[in-house]
């Protein structure tokens, strides 16, 4: 590789980094379209503690007065928490208020006002064989439903549609299971009408036509009508899910209040400045100690930052909370340490008498396992935190997993490539890399 080619590669990478930074930071209208590009940073969903959200109060009414209200409220709280978690509101807080109310705090993502009103407007679900508000024992009701989720399925040879998948129960202690009732229902409508009707209380919500035979799969996929996008599919799934509860939720009038970030008002700016200071400190330390290697680490750090920001907005379950910011700081510290280990081993090899290019080669070889070790233990710990933790550690675990993986990639591949490109530019001036020979050591 010639010096000219190396410089060209650095220039090319620098331009790519500048473009990456612009894409991460700036929002702009996309030319020749009506859409806006929002910038990676602006697209990261922020948690309740960082960006605030909404609070709402619901009154809970028992549908079966023989049940215990306290028990039903506790069950409803845990049920709503699970439902909100599955809808991406992993940091939502649901607490009991008084004897018959629940208070919901939800972050400012994915249209929380619609979520709040959907929760308060969900009624009992009935799947019927005829268009009537009268109930019958053959109707499928909430307790016959095992799972509800929004999904995208192929509806024709060329088309995919968003819809809601309803899975019926396989067994029942009281009589027929949900799957059996659905088979009976579809068997009935197959011979007359070919249509089933889905009601929320007395309101006809959706009808599904074209049923010509009994369905034995135990699942029902609903699409079309009011369900046309992921958002409407999520809303309908939420309504059906809440409709399966044995309690009725009604929104307390005027209870919806916009709540600010629970952290200091300027936390976002504050945290970003702090992380920037941390990065600058690390780069300055590396530049002072290892000179040009420090600048290489700056380029790697920028690529790392762009990739982390990109994946944080691209992975749909990421929610940036306080824990996420701590994970970002830990990830940067890990990256710094990986680089320090790498450069220090190269310096040791040079001190022992090796030439610069051989020092880089053997220093890298010596560092790989240690760098892999510290990153892998961080990935194992953070992955488990994400998978099993609570709302505070989910964000911490997920973001640390992402940043450790990208850190590993950056250190072992990107920095290695930059060091390789650097050699044609300088392979003899050790001072430029802050390298020194050991005492009484001659070049091998």
């Amino acid at each position: 590789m010639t010096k000219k080619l190396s410089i060209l590669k650095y220039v090319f990478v620098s331009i790519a980094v500048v473009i990456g930074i612009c894409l991460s930071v700036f929002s702009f209208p996309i030319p020749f379209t009506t859409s806006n590009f929002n910038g990676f940073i602006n697209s990261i969903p922020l948690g309740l503690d960082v960006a605030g959200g909404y609070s709402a109060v619901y009154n809970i009414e028992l549908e079966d007065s023989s049940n215990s209200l306290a028990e039903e409220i506790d069950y409803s709280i845990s049920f709503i928490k699970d439902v909100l978690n599955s809808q991406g509101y992993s940091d939502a807080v649901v607490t009991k208020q008084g004897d018959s109310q629940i208070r919901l705090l939800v972050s400012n993502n994915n249209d929380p006002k619609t979520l709040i009103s959907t929760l308060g407007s969900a009624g009992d679900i009935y799947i019927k064989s005829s268009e009537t508000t009268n109930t019958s024992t053959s109707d499928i009701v909430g307790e016959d439903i095992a799972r509800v989720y929004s999904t995208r399925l192929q509806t024709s040879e060329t088309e995919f549609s968003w819809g809601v998948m309803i899975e019926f129960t396989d067994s029942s202690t009281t009589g027929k299971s949900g799957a059996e009732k659905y088979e009976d229902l579809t068997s009935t409508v197959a011979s007359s009408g070919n249509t089933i009707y889905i009601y929320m209380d007395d309101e006809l919500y959706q009808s599904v036509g074209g049923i010509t035979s009994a369905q034995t799969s135990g699942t029902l996929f609903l699409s079309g009508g009011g369900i046309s996008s992921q958002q409407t599919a999520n809303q309908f799934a939420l309504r059906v899910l809440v409709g399966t509860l044995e309690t009725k939720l009604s929104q307390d009038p005027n209870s919806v209040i916009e709540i600010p970030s629970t952290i200091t008002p300027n936390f976002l700016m504050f945290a970003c400045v702090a992380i920037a200071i941390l990065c600058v400190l690390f780069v300055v330390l590396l530049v002072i100690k290892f000179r040009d290697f420090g600048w290489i680490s700056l380029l790697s750090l920028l690529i790392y930052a762009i990739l982390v920001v990109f994946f944080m907005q691209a992975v749909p379950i990421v929610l940036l909370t306080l824990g996420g910011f701590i994970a970002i700081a830990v990830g940067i510290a890990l990256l710094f340490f990986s680089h320090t280990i790498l450069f220090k081993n190269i310096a040791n090899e040079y001190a022992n008498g090796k030439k610069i290019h051989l020092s880089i080669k053997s220093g890298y070889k010596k560092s790989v396992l240690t760098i892999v070790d510290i990153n892998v233990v961080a990935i194992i710990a953070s992955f488990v935190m994400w998978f099993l933790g609570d709302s505070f550690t989910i964000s911490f675990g997920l973001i640390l997993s992402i940043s450790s993986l990208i850190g590993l990639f950056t250190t072992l591949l990107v920095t290695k490539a930059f060091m390789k490109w650097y050699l044609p530019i300088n392979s003899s001036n050790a001072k430029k890399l802050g390298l020194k020979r050991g005492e009484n050591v001659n070049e091998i």
Partner: protein
Amino acid sequence: MKSKYWLKLIAPVLILVLAIVLFFTVGFNKSLELRGYYLLEVNIGDYELSEALDKIENVLNDKEITIEEYIPEEDDYGMVIAIKYTTTDSNEHLQENIKDELFTEFAYNSSSLLEQTYIKVSDFIQPQSMTAPISSILLAVLIGLVGIFVYIALRHSTANAFSIVLSAILDVLLMISLTIILRLPISSSFALAIAGTMVFSVILNTLQYSKFIENSNDEKMLKLNNDEIIKISQQMFSKELIVLIMSYLFAVCVFAFYNLSTSLSLVFGILSSVYVSQLVTPHLWAMAYRRRVRTKKENKTAVNND
């Protein structure tokens, strides 16, 4: 070395014992969200925030209630102050009395239907449960440590894996103990302190171990004993350790503005990790390493005897 080893273990053991005693007598110092509270919401209309706060404080102070936390919020009708408070007064009309007095204080008409002039006092907001988050994080820590144990055991040795896992458990326990002893209020974000301490501990101990292993395999140090290898490794690692501690402390201090108690718990976690990695981990490594050397020597002697 053996006597020093036990000496160094006394401090953590004392902290753990004291924490266990306190845990079973007074328990954790729980924050407001874990104790439950009443929420008072006042739409302040044309009043200044400080003026409205003074009015609310006057009414609550008369009833010997102190404001635990206040948050300026907003709804469709303007600025709202949300006040969180607790009371031991069992008078069932207390909340209604507070509401009535506030209507008078703010000169709002309680029968008015205007949304701009409402005052609401919530029923008691039940404390958030800590059982589920703490049990899920402890399960996560446990499974995470099993994963790390398997990885280190495959990469290095079972003894090393055992030491790293033991150190991480000790660090987390010390952090929890110090939080209990110093009566730091814990909130639902305490799980973050547990997770942060565990991650810091395993990274620090893995770095420390890598240094021990690297130096013990270095040809120049073959004649050195374990104490000397530990000393050299710690000297070589000292600068990185300082930078690592400083960077973590910096990150934690930034977040202290949000949640001081969790940040302090994290600081304790970092300090206990440093203590354990500098004073306990080296001895755990030395114990494992010495056994390996002895086995080699024994084998050599056995071969010579044959």
